[in-house]
């Protein structure tokens, strides 16, 4: 959260930008740069691409700054632009078949199966943590772009359904429905990659 004075200062910068004064944009960039880096990185997950994407996001934001009406916070408005941009980027990348699909290492697979069998994945060792991290990045990479945006906001960044609704300009009920579908698709991916076997109820003793 920013203080009252900071908010007033910020409103001044934004109004100047809306009149076309580019210099007034620099302090806004400085203030929100790391927030935008964060949101872009969580969705796109390519370290080498993030900086370029963030630059494009800010350029888009300046071009569209007259449409900012001070209803939501500037950060929310910026995040919306960033996420729309990420979404377009992911669709482009998918369309050009750059999405890579890599196989998990034998060891990672074994660690994952061990993790899946243990009931409480709270106390994971280093290998198991690496295995679940690899799994999560793989399934996110394979997910449709819209799912990826939602899952990154909810499961990684920990935003509430209401917050996501505000950022994406959607009704919370819509977010809920889409999130549910995204999770279902995600679980299918997880099960097939981690070889989580149905057939043994969690409580049943293993042979």
């Amino acid at each position, binding site marked *: 959260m920013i203080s009252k004075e900071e908010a007033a200062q910020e409103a001044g910068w934004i109004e100047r930008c809306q009149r076309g004064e*580019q210099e007034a944009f620099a302090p806004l960039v*400085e203030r929100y740069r790391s927030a935008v880096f964060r949101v872009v990185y*969580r969705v796109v997950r390519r370290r080498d691409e993030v900086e370029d994407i963030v630059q494009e996001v*800010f350029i888009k934001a300046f071009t569209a700054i007259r449409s900012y009406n001070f209803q939501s916070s500037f950060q929310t408005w910026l995040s919306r632009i960033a996420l729309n941009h990420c979404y377009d980027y992911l669709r482009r990348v998918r369309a050009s078949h750059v999405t890579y699909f890599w196989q998990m290492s034998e060891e990672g697979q074994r660690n994952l199966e061990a993790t899946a069998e243990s009931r409480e994945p709270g106390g994971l060792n280093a290998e198991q943590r690496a295995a679940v991290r690899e799994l999560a990045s793989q399934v996110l990479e394979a997910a449709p772009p819209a799912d990826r945006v939602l899952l990154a906001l909810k499961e990684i960044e920990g935003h509430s359904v209401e917050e996501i609704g505000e950022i994406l300009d959607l009704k919370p009920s819509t977010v809920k429905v889409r999130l549910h579908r995204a999770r279902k698709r995600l679980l299918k991916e997880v099960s097939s990659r981690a070889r989580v076997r149905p057939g043994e*109820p969690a409580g049943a003793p293993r042979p």
Partner: protein
Amino acid sequence: MRCDHVLEILAEGDPRAREIKEHLAQCPACAARARAWRLAQAGFRELASEPVPEASVGFTPRLMRRLAESSRPAPAEQSFFEKVGRRFVYSTLMLALLALLALAVPRSGPLRSPNSAELMLMQPSVATLQDESVLNVDGLGSHWPHNSTVTAPAAGGQR
């Protein structure tokens, strides 16, 4: 409890945990889902703890330059400078072209003598000139010192 609710309840950390436990104990499909979900959650927790890359040095100035370039509305004074700039570029190119020509012309021969150019192409070795008549090819012979070394074919003067 319906299977379809299980995931939602799991994902949202619903307080109906006991109900879920009972269902999972009886429903293999949901139990497998629950395991998959726990794996995914553990993975997401790991991803959330990953450090986010930071902007490299000069990020904001670079952005401001890009912004200035991309949104230039070309008012009158700028188009004036643009015109002047373009003329400057053209004249520089012209001068460079002329300079190149000036460098190329004497080597290609015709201004000196058609024969010497041809012979230079045929026999591009360095020869020591002993015959004074060679130097007369281009009419400079008398000014040259007698035993000088010049890049020219020895046979030049014989023709």
